[in-house]
């Protein structure tokens, strides 16, 4: 053990340790140290563990929610009613335009075709008629899965050419009776549905997340080439 002194041997080749703290330490090491309570001997270790576990809990439990703000949609919307009682298909309200581009959400005018007068007597229905249809004001929905401007997604290539069903990416949205609040990442400003939810690992289903990896994984699975320009603009 003492040979370790050799390593700060100075020009004189002086081997004896210099600092008193060091002497005490060395003696502790060699003679097992003076008697001290168990706790105080392991105090350091405990402290370390406290820090470790504390941060782990904070990081995994409390940190993730802090990243997101959620905004209520301007109106509640019941997809299920439209599907069941209305007997409608997704494509009735979310069609392709004449040039093959995807129309995304219906315009107020499209809605008004059926909803000139209130159908049923839900609060949302009333609000819709009074605040939007009558004054002719478009509803500015928050679109959960709207891709950022640098990403290009062709619905027709997936739905028509690729033969995907809406559910495969959007989940069972069509049967939802209400729409959840829209969550935004406070740093990136992305929708949570696009930015990803889980903190660890990588979600595989686009219903959970629509990150680049999600797209490329699926493309690779289906043997599609994935040049950058395929999806980036």
């Amino acid at each position, binding site marked *: 053990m003492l040979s370790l002194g050799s390593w700060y041997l100075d020009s004189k080749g002086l081997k004896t340790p210099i600092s008193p703290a060091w002497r005490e330490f060395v003696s502790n090491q060699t003679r097992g140290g003076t008697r001290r309570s168990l706790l105080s001997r392991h105090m350091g270790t405990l402290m370390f563990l406290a820090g470790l576990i504390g941060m782990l809990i904070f990081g995994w439990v409390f940190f993730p929610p802090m990243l997101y703000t959620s905004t209520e949609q301007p109106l509640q919307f019941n997809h299920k009613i439209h599907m069941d009682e209305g007997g409608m298909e997704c494509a009735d309200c979310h069609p*392709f335009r*004449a*040039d*093959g*581009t995807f129309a995304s959400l219906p315009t107020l005018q499209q809605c008004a075709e059926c909803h000139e007068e209130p159908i049923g007597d839900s609060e949302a229905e009333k609000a819709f008629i009074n605040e939007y249809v009558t004054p002719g004001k478009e509803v500015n929905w928050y679109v959960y899965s709207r891709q950022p*401007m*640098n990403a*290009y997604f*062709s619905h*027709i*290539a997936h739905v*028509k*050419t690729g033969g995907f069903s809406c559910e495969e990416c959007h989940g069972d949205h069509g049967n939802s009776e209400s729409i959840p609040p829209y969550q935004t990442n406070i740093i990136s400003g992305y929708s949570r549905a696009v930015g990803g939810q889980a903190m660890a690992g990588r979600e595989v289903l686009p219903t959970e997340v629509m990150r680049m990896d999600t797209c490329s994984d699926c493309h690779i699975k289906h043997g599609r*080439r994935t*040049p*950058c*320009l*395929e999806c*980036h*603009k």
Partner: protein
Amino acid sequence: MSRAKEKPEGAPRYAMTIDLDKCTGCGACMVACAVENNVPPAQSGANDRNGTTLMRVYAMSNKQAYPHAKQVFVPMTCQQCEDPPCETVCPQNAVEYDWTTGIVAQIPVRCLGCRYCMVACPYHARAFNWWDPTWPEGMEATLNPDISTRSRGTAEKCNFCHHRRQLARERAAHEDREMREDEYQPACVEACPVGAITFGNLEDPNSAVSKGFAKPEAFAFVEKLGTEPKIRYLSSQKWVHDMARSGVPGKEATNG
């Protein structure tokens, strides 16, 4: 590296010919390019060296005296090299040779702005966003949603208006047919008032570009660097060819 991947069957290789005898240097292609690709107007203090010109027209002269002076105007954009010097240098794959189109793709959102690619490009075809992109108040309304606006601190270049191909493909899919090559033409090609620019698929031997490439008037700039550009310039004037090769009219590069 994309070179390793083999080209998929029947995939096109897009290319361009530019006829220097026709080009009058009006600059319509530059403006059309800027408009189509959401390039902002010059910032005050911007100049021909730090401006964002994905398509830029240069004047090349034969260095003679009046009245023997001659000039041609050279529209210079990304040459979509088969062996792009910019691709291999990018540290994080923001540049990629797209084997499905032959286009050298530049992806600004991946770019960290190290500008190594710009140093590597002998055609100075790349531009860096030295400023935040800004438009006069309200003019954002005229921006083209088919392509993003690029943030400050990223490099960009011509992608042959690839987004136009995407749209053409969507239209074709909607009409249950294959996309016709003439449906996809970059903005500069459309805009050139004298029809100096031709664009098409090099894999198709009957396409206008394939024929253009075969012409004796066809040449590429600094060919000997071996980047194999997919843009060929056409000129019937010998001095233009000489300049393009050696930078000296009427003189070939020695031991070249």
